[in-house]
């Protein structure tokens, strides 16, 4: 608007200036015509004088000058204008104001100006400014001047001024409107472009600009819209991707938290509410260490600092976290230091609830412990039973054997000291007492050795059964009609030598003791059967009826009278117990009258065949 006003005043001023200048020109022309008229009158008088040859008669000349003066005075110059004459000496000769005639104006500036050339304005005395035009009339040495007050000349213009002014204002307004309209034509597209850019800047990506026509602006708008399209597409894709990943994170059953350097939570995935009861937003800004169990805090802080120092490491650990209800939950978490990642800028902790797993494990552990406790209880019971048995064995060995020994001693003394008092029958009876006492002692020893199996600590060594069995055969003192030998090779086993000796000793002794053939053969063999060894002791003795295949392994059971074959009835029971102790089995295959084979198995334990 100030600009408009400036233009307005400029135009008004210009108009005024030009109109005034035009008026001056007009006034000058007007004055020129009046001057020409006055000159013509003067010339006519001179001509008249010449015509009548009066040019040298001073009276005639005076007369002519007077006539001319009258005529010139009569010339009308507007309302206030007038014609006057000044002599070359500067004396006013003719002037409508008679008072001024005869005045000397030679000192006036305009007179000097006039003498040297042209004059435009004259004034003296109380005159206001007059516009003037002068001509020098040589015959009479007159300066004829036509003057008119400038007021009169410019009066029109001055009167016209307001009209011009209003006109100028109107014109200016009109011009301004036109200008504004034209400017609008230029600025409107710019404004809409700016507004469009602003809206896009504010995120209104659907903004499009429409500028009709086929100028630079509409082209620019087209380019702008294309750019907006691309931006919107890119942004939509980005938003979709972000949504995609966000939905993965937010629907994951694992908790994802991001911590800053101090452990302050900057993000928590929604699953935290399901698992720990906290609103994710409520946790933001809190320190994660605050909700970790005091017992785990030190460890977690240590891991945190370790990872802070060496970000390449990814650590995984278990820790307890407080649920919003105050209970503790066990989580298993993996953390990754992404503090220096430009976008993440934090620790990413990925944790899952393993409380149930933990509880299940604990329950398992408890039931395990319970089981263990029960086993221990049973073991303790067993131990006490074993102890009782031990004590029982001890008592048996001592308390039962002591009277037995006394009987034996006394019987012996009676038969020695009272030989004469006893007859043959009496001495035989004494012998029978001694034999029964021995048998009783054997039975007691059998029970004791049976009770010792599994009670006495075993000494497991690498035992070459070829050597062991050879020794047993040598010491068995088999009668000459019985041949005992090893069939092939026996293995080396990791067992207690005493136990293995008891096994082979009993089986071989039985085979020899009960041999009823004139050519007795006892063979000891072994073959590998997968994960176990299968041993066999075969004889060609009397054989055992199938009815007794079970009974022979029971304690104190014998198939022949003890007076025939002195036996404790403990041997096979002992063998069976040892074999069972070693997780093997024992059985007999027999054909009565032809012989028997006792088989037993032993699981292999890093053993090798002696031959190998």
């Amino acid at each position, binding site marked *: 608007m100030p600009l408009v006003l400036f233009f307005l005043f400029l135009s008004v001023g210009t108009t005024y200036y030009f109109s005034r200048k035009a008026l001056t020109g007009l006034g000058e022309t007007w004055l020129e015509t009046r001057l020409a008229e006055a000159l013509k009158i003067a010339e006519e008088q001179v001509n008249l004088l010449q015509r009548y040859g009066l040019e040298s008669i001073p009276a005639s000349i005076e007369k002519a000058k007077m006539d001319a003066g009258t005529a010139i005075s009569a010339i009308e110059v507007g309302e206030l204008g007038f014609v006057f004459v000044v002599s070359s000496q500067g004396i006013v000769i003719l002037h409508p104001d008679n008072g001024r005639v005869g005045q000397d104006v030679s000192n006036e500036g305009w007179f000097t100006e006039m003498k040297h050339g042209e004059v435009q304005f004259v004034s003296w005395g109380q005159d206001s400014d007059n516009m003037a035009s002068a001509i020098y009339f040589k015959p009479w040495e007159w300066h004829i001047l036509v003057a008119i007050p400038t007021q009169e000349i410019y009066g029109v213009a001055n009167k016209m001024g307001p009209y011009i002014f209003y006109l100028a204002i109107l014109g200016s307004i009109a011009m301004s409107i036109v200008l504004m309209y034209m400017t609008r034509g230029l600025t409107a597209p710019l404004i809409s472009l700016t507004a469009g850019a602003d809206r896009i800047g504010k995120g209104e990506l659907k903004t499009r600009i429409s500028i009709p026509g086929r100028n630079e602006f509409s082209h620019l708008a087209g380019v702008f819209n294309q750019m907006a399209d691309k931006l919107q597409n890119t942004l939509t894709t980005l938003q979709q991707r972000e949504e995609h990943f966000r939905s993965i994170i937010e629907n994951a059953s694992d908790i994802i938290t991001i911590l800053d350097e101090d452990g302050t939570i900057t993000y928590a995935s929604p699953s935290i509410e399901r698992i720990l009861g906290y609103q994710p937003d409520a946790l933001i800004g809190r320190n994660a260490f605050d909700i970790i169990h005091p017992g785990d805090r030190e460890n977690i802080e240590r891991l945190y600092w370790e990872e802070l120092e060496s970000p390449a490491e990814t650590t995984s650990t278990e820790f307890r976290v407080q649920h919003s209800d105050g209970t503790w939950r066990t989580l298993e978490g993996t953390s990754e230091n992404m503090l220096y990642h430009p976008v993440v800028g934090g620790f990413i902790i990925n944790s899952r609830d393993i409380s149930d797993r933990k509880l299940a494990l604990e329950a398992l552990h408890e039931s395990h412990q319970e089981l263990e406790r029960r086993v221990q209880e049973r073991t303790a019971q067993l131990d006490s039973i074993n102890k009782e048995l031990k004590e029982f*064995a*001890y008592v048996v*060995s*001592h*308390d039962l*054997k*002591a009277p*037995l*020994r*006394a009987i*034996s*001693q*006394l019987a*012996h*003394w009676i038969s020695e000291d009272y030989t004469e008092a006893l007859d043959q029958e009496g001495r035989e009876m004494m012998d029978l007492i001694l034999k029964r*006492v*021995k048998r009783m*002692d054997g039975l007691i020893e059998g029970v*004791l050795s049976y009770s010792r199996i599994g009670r*006495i600590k075993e000494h497991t060594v690498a035992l070459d059964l070829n050597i062991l069995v050879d020794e047993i055969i040598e010491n068995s003192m088999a009668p000459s009609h019985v041949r005992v030998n090893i069939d092939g090779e026996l293995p080396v086993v990791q067992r207690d030598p005493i136990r293995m000796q008891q096994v082979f000793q009993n089986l071989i002794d039985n085979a020899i003791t009960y041999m009823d053939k004139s050519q007795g053969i006892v063979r000891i063999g072994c073959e590998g059967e997968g994960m176990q060894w299968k041993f066999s002791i075969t004889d060609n003795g009397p054989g055992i009826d199938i009815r007794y295949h079970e009974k022979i392994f029971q304690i104190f059971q014998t198939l022949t009278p003890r007076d025939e074959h002195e036996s404790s009835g403990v041997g096979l029971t002992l063998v069976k117990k040892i074999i069972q102790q070693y997780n093997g089995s024992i059985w007999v295959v027999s054909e009565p009258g032809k012989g028997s084979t006792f088989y037993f198995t032993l699981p292999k334990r890093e053993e090798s065949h002696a031959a190998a």
Partner: protein
Amino acid sequence: MLRPRNILLVEDDRVDSMTIKRALEEVEINNRLDTVSNGEEALAYLLSAENELPALILLDLNMPRMNGMEFLRTVKTHAGFKKIPVVVLTTSRADQDISASFELGAAGYMVKPLDYREFIEAVVTIARYWQLSELPE
């Protein structure tokens, strides 16, 4: 060659005492045999000023009042008695009795055989050994 000092037998079984006595007589070992029937009596015997300290103690384990082990422990912690050799003569073949006896300082351990002849052999072997073995005075 025979040491004149006596042998102390700590034995509650009369038949066993008779056996040992008989055995010593049979092989003409003439040391006096003093018999007491339990640990307490044996200690009283040792502490009595009337008795000379025995050259050898034959000790049964299973006895009333103070058993053989208790007696052995007491004797072997007594400065005056611990030099006396104590041979355990018992029915028990139990490992724990054998090792405990030697830990407590027994000089020997013998299981009483059932057979009288074997019994005599055992007693004689012990007696002969301790007759030959040098002992501190």
